[in-house]
């Protein structure tokens, strides 16, 4: 069912409500990690490797130790710790932990080898320059193909290949043998980096009397970080408290525990003074985890009429230097394979996935993890098929998309699409950019125009079931707590921090929808492992709306039931007859406001005498079933064949994330992800030279899209509520980043096809599009 909804008058769900967090952020009163240094804290500067691969022969810290303002200079030998490896497993995946500080060998440019603790960051940086490290250089391992044959980066391994797996449906080979057409291609997606405007930042304070550690961190996963720090430092989880205030963007990069964060925690304990590390942009670019970086070889089998029969892929993931957490070596390549069929009906699929170590920054999630690369490759291949068969790209997709009658639809890779509007979003997106009238090829003014369309599915709101459908072992559930004070004010306590997604507003809307009260009466509290219920996975994978939202619906209903008991007593009514309207409990005998109920529950002895537990706290646990968002991105580009410049001249995103909590925030997530997708397709490149040195070391090399790079984007929302999750909520937020690079790449490919230029990788560099003289 697809509904285009009007906001229910009595529900805060679906309201385009301005965000509660905006006021303080706009007044400059946000509280980011660097804004609240612990009293008397020492500042960290890391000494980082200039070599992509080298043995550390000797580190001489004497000069640095005597430098002005320096309190301590630490190397790996000073900071022993248990290994930083994630509990998440995929059978066959080899793990190679990254140490907090490299001890014997460095494996990428930027890897930390020592840390200086000084009275200011400037003094720490001065002293860091005086640390003398003697290296013996080893050959860099840059090309993932070559890495398969080169000596392993980790002497304990027999090869740089840390994972190899294959899977296929039984009819795959027969489908290829029987196909009328087989279209194939190899596509690569370059390294990207999330580049949140606030880089990573972390402070730690050790209390030697209580033997506790308090960490403040710009992280997406406070509970996960708490666990990792406790493990690495040999402390009890309960003795480590992680606080998160405002986070200046994360996009996946701040999911994993960073080696630097472990180093900061270790250093605070070793130095006996609080320690603060705020990375600068160069550190973020060369040492913060990267994303994407895959080579995808694809073959599509089609019938003569264009029906897709089978799709096969071979994915090679460039893991970077270490395979140390769920977020590193495998996540990209493996997830790409799982979503191989995307929004299409393709009965047979098969994949081989390999992941190899190279001398580059390790890979972590970046919005659209894994899926972006596979999706981009598939969409480019489908356009290639359309050109080969002389078919319109929209029409070929229309023919093969999942249709309403197919739902629920189970892909050969094991995902069950519970609901969706796959065809409807395609039609709307094509219409919004007037695709029927875009003629690919040269325009009157000498540019080349192209159109690209990219229908997507986003496995959203990962609970454990959703994770399992992506063949990923991943605990992904949450508990939440909702409480009402004597004043009637409501507090919702959750374990998932926000990095700009507006949870303070949307989660309040969810709670308020049950109590029928003003969402402004609901305060959302998060960001403190000492006070918030456990969130195993934190904020990632578009899961908060679904998992936390569902848990809050449960908990608030429980709270409402308790309120009904009190209200029943006050109104002399059967609690079963009580309903809530406009923030009041309503019974046939009359009504009473939430504040009056709450006050009575707290202070009225008569209520206490009548009710065994007039307590207004409720908790709930939720681990939702799998659900899938969908939608479609369409773009029109123009290419200047003289300079290779690409302009995105028109664009539309039609998305369907089930029940919409706040359309304004869905718009924002979509627009932001779209921009990142344009960056991924055209501008952003965190690649490495053949010598293993990183190309992107500042924002003058790593080009983020600016307001001038983007047209006005048309947005539409369709709503196919999830049939099985609480509230019909699906996740969103990564969608446009999954689909936009493919749309842009297809549009550029269509534009330059008449020039004999093919597009096989992103980012597409201008020089590749310059028409050569005939």
């Amino acid at each position: 069912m697809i509904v285009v909804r009007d906001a229910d008058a009595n529900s805060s769900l679906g309201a385009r409500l301005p965000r509660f967090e905006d006021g303080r952020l706009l007044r400059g009163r946000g509280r980011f990690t660097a804004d609240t240094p612990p009293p008397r804290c020492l500042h960290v500067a890391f000494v980082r490797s200039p070599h992509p691969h080298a043995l550390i022969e000797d580190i001489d810290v004497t000069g640095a130790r005597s430098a002005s303002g320096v309190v301590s200079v630490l190397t790996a030998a000073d900071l022993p710790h248990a290994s930083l490896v994630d509990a998440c497993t995929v059978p066959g995946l080899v793990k190679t932990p990254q140490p907090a500080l490299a001890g014997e060998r460095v494996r990428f440019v930027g890897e930390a080898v020592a840390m200086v603790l000084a009275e200011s960051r400037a003094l720490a940086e001065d002293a860091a320059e005086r640390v003398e490290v003697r290296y013996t250089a080893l050959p860099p391992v840059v090309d993932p193909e070559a890495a398969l044959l080169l000596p392993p980066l980790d002497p304990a391994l027999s090869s740089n290949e840390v994972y190899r797996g294959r899977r296929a449906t039984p009819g795959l080979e027969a489908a290829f043998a029987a196909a009328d057409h087989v279209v194939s291609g190899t596509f690569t997606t370059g390294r990207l980096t999330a580049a949140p405007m606030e880089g990573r930042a972390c402070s730690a304070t050790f209390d030697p009397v209580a033997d506790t550690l308090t960490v403040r961190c710009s992280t997406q996963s406070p509970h996960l970080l708490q666990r990792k720090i406790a493990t690495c430092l040999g402390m009890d989880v309960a003795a480590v408290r992680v606080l998160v205030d405002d986070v200046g963007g994360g996009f996946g990069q701040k999911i994993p525990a960073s080696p630097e964060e472990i180093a900061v925690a270790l250093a605070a304990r070793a130095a006996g003074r609080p320690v603060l590390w705020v990375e600068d942009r160069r550190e973020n670019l060369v040492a913060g985890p990267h994303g994407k970086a895959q080579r995808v070889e694809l073959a599509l089998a089609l019938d003569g009429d264009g029906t897709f029969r089978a799709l096969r892929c071979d994915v090679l993931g460039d893991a970077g230097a270490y395979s140390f957490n769920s977020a590193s070596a495998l996540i990209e390549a493996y997830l790409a394979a799982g979503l191989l069929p995307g929004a299409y009906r393709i009965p047979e699929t098969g994949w081989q996935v390999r992941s190899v170590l190279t001398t580059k920054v390790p890979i972590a999630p970046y919005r659209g993890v894994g899926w972006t690369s596979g999706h981009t490759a598939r969409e480019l291949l489908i356009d290639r098929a359309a050109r080969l068969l002389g078919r319109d790209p929209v029409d070929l997709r229309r023919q093969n998309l999942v249709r309403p009658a197919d739902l629920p639809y189970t892909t050969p890779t094991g995902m069950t699409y519970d609901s969706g509007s796959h065809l409807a979003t395609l039609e709307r997106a094509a219409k919004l950019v007037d695709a029927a009238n875009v003629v690919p090829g040269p325009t009157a003014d000498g540019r080349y125009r192209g159109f690209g369309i990219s229908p997507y599915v986003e496995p959203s709101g990962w609970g454990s079931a959703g994770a399992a459908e992506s063949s990923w072992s991943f605990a992904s559930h949450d508990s939440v707590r909702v409480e009402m004070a004597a004043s009637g004010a409501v507090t919702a306590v959750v374990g998932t921090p926000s990095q700009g997604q507006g949870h303070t507003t949307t989660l309040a809307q969810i709670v308020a929808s049950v109590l029928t009260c003003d969402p402004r009466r609901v305060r959302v509290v998060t960001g403190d492992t000492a006070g918030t219920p456990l969130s195993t996975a934190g904020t990632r994978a578009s899961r908060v709306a679904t998992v936390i939202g569902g848990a809050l619906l449960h908990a608030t209903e429980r709270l409402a039931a308790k309120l009904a008991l009190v209200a029943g007593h006050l109104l002399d009514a059967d609690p079963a007859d009580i309903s809530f309207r406009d923030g009041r409990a309503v019974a046939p005998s009359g009504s009473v406001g939430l504040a009056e109920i709450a006050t009575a529950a707290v202070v009225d002895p008569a209520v206490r005498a009548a009710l065994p537990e007039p307590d207004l706290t409720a908790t709930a646990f939720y681990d939702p079933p799998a659900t899938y968002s969908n939608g479609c991105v369409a773009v029109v580009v123009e290419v200047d064949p003289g300079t290779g410049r690409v302009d995105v001249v028109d664009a539309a995103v039609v998305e369907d994330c089930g029940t919409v909590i706040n359309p304004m925030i869905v718009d924002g997530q979509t627009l932001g992800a779209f921009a990142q997708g344009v960056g991924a397709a055209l501008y952003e490149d965190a690649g490495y030279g053949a010598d293993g040195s990183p190309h992107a070391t500042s924002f003058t090399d790593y080009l983020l899209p600016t307001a001038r790079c983007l047209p006005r984007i048309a947005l539409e929302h369709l709503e196919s509520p999830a049939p099985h999750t609480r509230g019909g909520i699906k996740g969103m937020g990564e969608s446009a980043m999954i689909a936009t690079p493919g749309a842009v790449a297809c549009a550029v490919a269509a534009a330059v096809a008449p020039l004999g230029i093919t597009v096989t990788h992103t980012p597409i560099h201008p020089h590749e599009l310059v028409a050569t003289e005939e």
Partner: protein
Amino acid sequence: MSPDDPLVRRAADPITVALTVNDRPSRMTVEPRTSLADALRDELGLTGTHVACEQGVCGACTVEVDGEAVRACLLLAVQADGTEVRTVEGLAAPDEPLHPIQQAFTDHHALQCGFCTPGLVMTVHHLLAERHGVDDGEIRTVVSGHLCRCTGYQGIVDAVRHADRTWDRPIGDGSG
């Protein structure tokens, strides 16, 4: 030069800077190499000014110095001696309603994480103080001096267009 060289020592000696920040006379004692951004944050506690690149690319650190929008990471604090500085904290007092630009930003969802926001708001403040009736092309050109990783800029463009209409202000010289 050895660190004992008098020239070196003099170059590192702290200097006292007197300036007006958000209409209040302020003094701070800083190393000569301290940027205005760091000084505002560390010495005056005005942490609304953010740093995200420290090389003049991103615009997060933008403040007004004598009415001009400047990147506070590229100006030394000592260069701001005697100037009038306005930071994001100086647009609306905590007990006052939001400035019309700030109000437009929230109404049009022009911010997500809010890290780039203070700098953008200051640039927009400078733009609109001088110009009335800006069009989308001009807005995009000005906004393209800032990096925002979250919003895709569309809400920001809408907010600026809206604030241009709602902010009641004297007519500037229009030269921009």
